[in-house]
């Protein structure tokens, strides 16, 4: 036992003397968490996307087109859109180089056609290189179109009166006849205001705990959700690197030299396994600590988190013990190890949110440690006991260990 502890201490000291590799593998998940969190964290309530650059071409320059253009200038719209009014030729040149998400073209005669209640078409030119923002502009314009259609129909009579006068010279306009039209319009505006202030129907996005729904996430939530997936992926890389000693000792002849000492193979195997386990646990704790300090990551109750971290580290150490017992040399270990880790990570939810995955991929994810750790970490964050994750990881880890130890003993005494 003492001999095993000495080897373990020596291993830890050796790895800490040249920590660059471990530090880099700790830095990668933290850097990725930071980057994803910064990009996707909601900045303000209701504003998750940067302002959408929109070009507006007003070929009409009439009253209605000016009203439409000015709708982009309302405070709420300014947060959403970065509108630039331009000429059509310039707009088309800019769109052909992808300099805006979309261009809205208001056709010539727009105002007069509306006054005559004739159908009019607004053109939205979309940036083909963008996947989301042009659709938002298109949908916004569709909503504006519905509203404009409603206004034109609601004030159809008054609008017709105004239209009849537009072509007359100013001096010939029957100003006095406008009074009844304006009176009617005033009544309609008063009637409409009953529906518009406050809005008769509006949507209230609820932060609900109902089954199937989750509350709106904050930046801290986002970091807390991303980090476990990244952490477990790089835990696998780090433990694989640390436990490669099982191979290199054999290849470099160190094992034969150690065999001349009173050291028993089981003690050596135990020390290496414990080394991988403890170092893995330490790495997870460092990641969680840095995450908590830098990104306000929440891990939940410390006791539960430590338990889950200890179990996933144990699983990882047992898995790579078996892996290194089965591979022939370090080249093979290098060639097979990383693909296995990446496959675990893709299907297990470290790279893509499990909920966004196709069903078939989700089913494969069940056989990966990443999935169980990520699910367990989510429960621990909510203060719940991750029973299923602990049982699955512990039982499968023990099975791996039971397979690894005899295989490693055989390889050690070969």
């Amino acid at each position: 036992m003492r001999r095993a502890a000495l080897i373990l201490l020596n291993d830890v000291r050796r790895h800490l003397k040249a920590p660059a590799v471990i530090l880099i593998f700790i830095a990668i998940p933290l850097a990725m968490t930071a980057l994803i969190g910064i990009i996707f964290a909601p900045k303000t309530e209701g504003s998750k996307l940067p302002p959408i650059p929109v070009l507006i071409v007003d070929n009409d320059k009439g009253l209605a087109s000016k009203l439409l253009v000015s709708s982009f200038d309302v405070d709420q719209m300014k947060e959403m859109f970065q509108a630039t009014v331009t000429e059509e030729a310039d707009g088309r040149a800019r769109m052909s180089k992808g300099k805006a998400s979309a261009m809205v073209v208001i056709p010539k005669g727009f105002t007069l056609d509306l006054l005559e209640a004739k159908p009019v078409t607004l053109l939205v030119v979309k940036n083909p290189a963008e996947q989301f923002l042009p659709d938002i502009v298109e949908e916004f314009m569709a909503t504006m179109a519905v509203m404009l259609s409603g206004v034109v129909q609601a004030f159809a009579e008054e609008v017709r009166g105004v239209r009849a006068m537009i072509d007359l010279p100013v001096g010939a306009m029957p100003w006095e006849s406008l009074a009844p039209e304006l009176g009617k319009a005033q009544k309609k505006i008063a009637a409409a205001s009953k529906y518009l202030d406050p809005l008769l129907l509006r949507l209230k996005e609820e932060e609900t705990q109902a089954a199937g729904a989750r509350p709106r996430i904050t930046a801290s939530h986002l970091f807390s959700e991303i980090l476990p997936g990244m952490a477990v992926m790089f835990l696998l890389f780090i433990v694989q690197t640390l436990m490669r000693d099982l191979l290199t000792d054999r290849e470099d002849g160190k094992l034969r030299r150690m065999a001349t000492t009173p050291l028993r193979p089981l003690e050596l195997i135990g020390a290496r396994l414990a080394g991988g386990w403890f170092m893995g646990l330490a790495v997870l704790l460092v990641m969680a600590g840095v995450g908590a300090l830098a990104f306000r990551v929440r891990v939940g109750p410390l006791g539960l988190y430590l338990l889950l971290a200890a179990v996933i580290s144990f699983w990882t150490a047992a898995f790579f013990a078996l892996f290194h017992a089965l591979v022939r040399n370090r080249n093979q270990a290098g060639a097979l190890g990383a693909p296995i880790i990446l496959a675990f990570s893709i299907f297990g939810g470290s790279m893509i949110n499990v909920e966004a995955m196709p069903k078939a991929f989700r089913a494969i994810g069940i056989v990966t440690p990443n999935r169980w750790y990520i699910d367990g970490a989510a429960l621990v964050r909510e203060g719940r006991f991750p029973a299923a994750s602990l049982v699955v990881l512990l039982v499968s880890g023990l099975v791996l260990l039971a397979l690894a130890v005899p295989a490693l003993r055989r390889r050690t005494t070969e």
Partner: protein
Amino acid sequence: MGRIRRILHVAANDLRIMVGDKIFFFWTLAFPILFIVIFGLLFKADANTPDVAEITVVNLDEGRWGAYFIGQIEAPGLAVTVTDKEPAEYNRLIVLPADFSARIEARRDQALAFKKRSGASASAAARVETRLMQAIARTISELVLYGEGDLAKFLDARPGFRDIVRVKSEFPANTVTVVPSGFDHTIPGTTIQFIMMMVLIYGGISVMEDRKKGVLARMLFSPLSTGELFRAKLLGRWGLGLLQAIMLFVVGKIFFGLKLGNVPLALLVIAVFALAMAALSVFIGSIVTKEDLIIGLSVLLANIFAALGGCWWPNEIVPPAVRAVARISPAYWAMDALHQLTFFQGGFADIVVQVGVLAALAAALAAVAGRAFRVRE
């Protein structure tokens, strides 16, 4: 043997050794294809299939306005499910309360609970939300049109609503004619990311191992000079990047219908980008002495460059500050140039700045790598 032939000979030999590695095709072809399939399907499902925009309406209304409002919501591309109690699972849900009709008929305002499941498609949620806003706008417009009359009789004699203003959308002239697929977006991004990863890892490790094992020093016994040896190593790694890109583009074309625009220009972009990465790999291989450290550094750099450069997600959703920082990533310039070619049918004049930046970067990195290149430990 002429100088150029000697350089080409060593470069081709390096390439042959790298390609001969059993796991080479997994890393350069199989794994990127897995990435392409997964992310391509994700983007496809999210952006181009309108039938996935589902909305569940919990209609508790005791009057007739609930059904009327549901009719206003219904539209092509929207799957509306009506139920009378809140289901356990849903993507988006709106509740029409029991007094929905009563409040409308009394002209009293109300807020409708709209719940979104956080993991569900954001673009489908946006589409549904917009449709709900349109339904509200349409309902209010009809109420205004109806005037002061008794709203209990509205549904029996409601005024017709005409869509006088319509919206038509199109892509800019001389660009794409069909909506780009998820694969058109993911294949260039994945190719750029894996060129970085593979050239840096394979290229860096092989330079380091050749130096440590004395292979580089032994090669100097041949007529090769140190400078020629450096150029050969650079060329070998450049060939690796180029070969990987060609394989992925060919697979993308055959299996996913990838549209690259002007193919020779796309290859030019990849060639200049791969040269920059080759120079970086020789530099890393020259200054680092541990394989694991090269892998770690390469993964770190490749992931950061890929994320910043728009290989993982569309740059349009990135905050302006991050987009400005992204210009330090070589992947940003390569992706921008490929977008110009793929989506805007651009020519050389449209990518000259991006190619110029990448060429300057390749020259600078090659100069630095040349100075750092060592044949002995």
